[in-house]
């Protein structure tokens, strides 16, 4: 067994991991609820800015302004999703580790976060971003976050 897997299993068998794993299935359901709500909050903020970059949705403000006003929501949503996600992961490490949908989801999530932090910092550093760069970034961001959602939903089916 790889060292990574041994390490992850050790966490699962630790006090917290085994407590969650043996608990009532409603504890896992509660984690899922925080996970889905976190995703929705995060996506709403990302979507609002991306629609604006595409020239649609709420056009009353610039993309820069919308991104600034909704950045707190992105962090709250991401925190809720990540914390509940870690909770679920450590309750059943091997289950997720060997699930291909989970692997795709984490890769897509990493890509989505990188695009969010790097590309968007560039696009939103100016009041009037280059329209082509803005549109590509918006579509890429939406595509990646939607894919994270789809991959996550697929975990239970694979």
């Amino acid at each position, binding site marked *: 067994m790889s060292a990574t897997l041994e390490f992850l299993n050790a966490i699962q068998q630790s006090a917290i991991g085994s407590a969650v794993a043996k608990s009532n299935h*409603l504890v896992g359901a509660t984690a899922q609820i925080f996970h889905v709500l976190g995703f*929705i909050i995060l996506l709403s903020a990302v979507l609002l800015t991306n629609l604006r970059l595409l020239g649609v*949705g*709420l056009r*009353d403000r610039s993309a820069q302004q919308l991104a600034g006003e909704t950045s707190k929501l992105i962090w709250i949503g991401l925190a809720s999703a990540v914390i509940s996600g870690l909770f679920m992961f450590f309750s059943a490490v091997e289950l997720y580790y060997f699930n291909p949908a989970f692997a795709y989801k984490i890769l897509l999530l990493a890509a989505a976060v990188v695009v969010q932090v790097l590309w968007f910092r560039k696009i939103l550093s100016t009041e009037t971003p280059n329209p082509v760069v803005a549109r590509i970034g918006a579509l890429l961001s939406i595509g990646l976050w*939607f894919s994270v959602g*789809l991959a996550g*939903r*697929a975990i239970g*089916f694979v």
Partner: protein
Amino acid sequence: MSLIPAFLDFAQSLQDSAFGTSLAESRYAFPIVEGIHLLGLSISVGLIFLTDLRLVGVLLRGVAIPVLLRQLRPWVLSGFAVTFASGLLLFSAEGATIAVSPAFPAKFLFIFLAGLNALYFEFRLAGLAPVQENQPTLPKRIRFAGLASIGLWVLVIISGRLIPYLP
């Protein structure tokens, strides 16, 4: 009430149909429809959350509410259309199986209440001066409608997620 058995019979006949069965047993189609259902509701409920946060007065305070509603409406409605269509497909595949969960009728009760709240806002509150004139402080009724909307949609999502777990 003979309505409930009739409804369950109808759900069962859908599930037993060729379409319902093939969807339920499909390898890719069913997970994809579930995923589309999630994305549709994320779009509609997510944008509604943003609108509600505006009504409560914590977000996008500079934006006039009528403008916000008008410009986001097509996206909220599109999200709902996708959610509803995918929901119908999911129901045809497994409606009879999940209808036994108390979370299932609870979900639709909360959807109904959220809809009532939205209609109440649209027809009784949206035309009021504080909303139309974008006054900095909104009356309690309007802020409450925003909070009620957030609360009800959260309950919809919780109910939906609990369907496989209850009982």
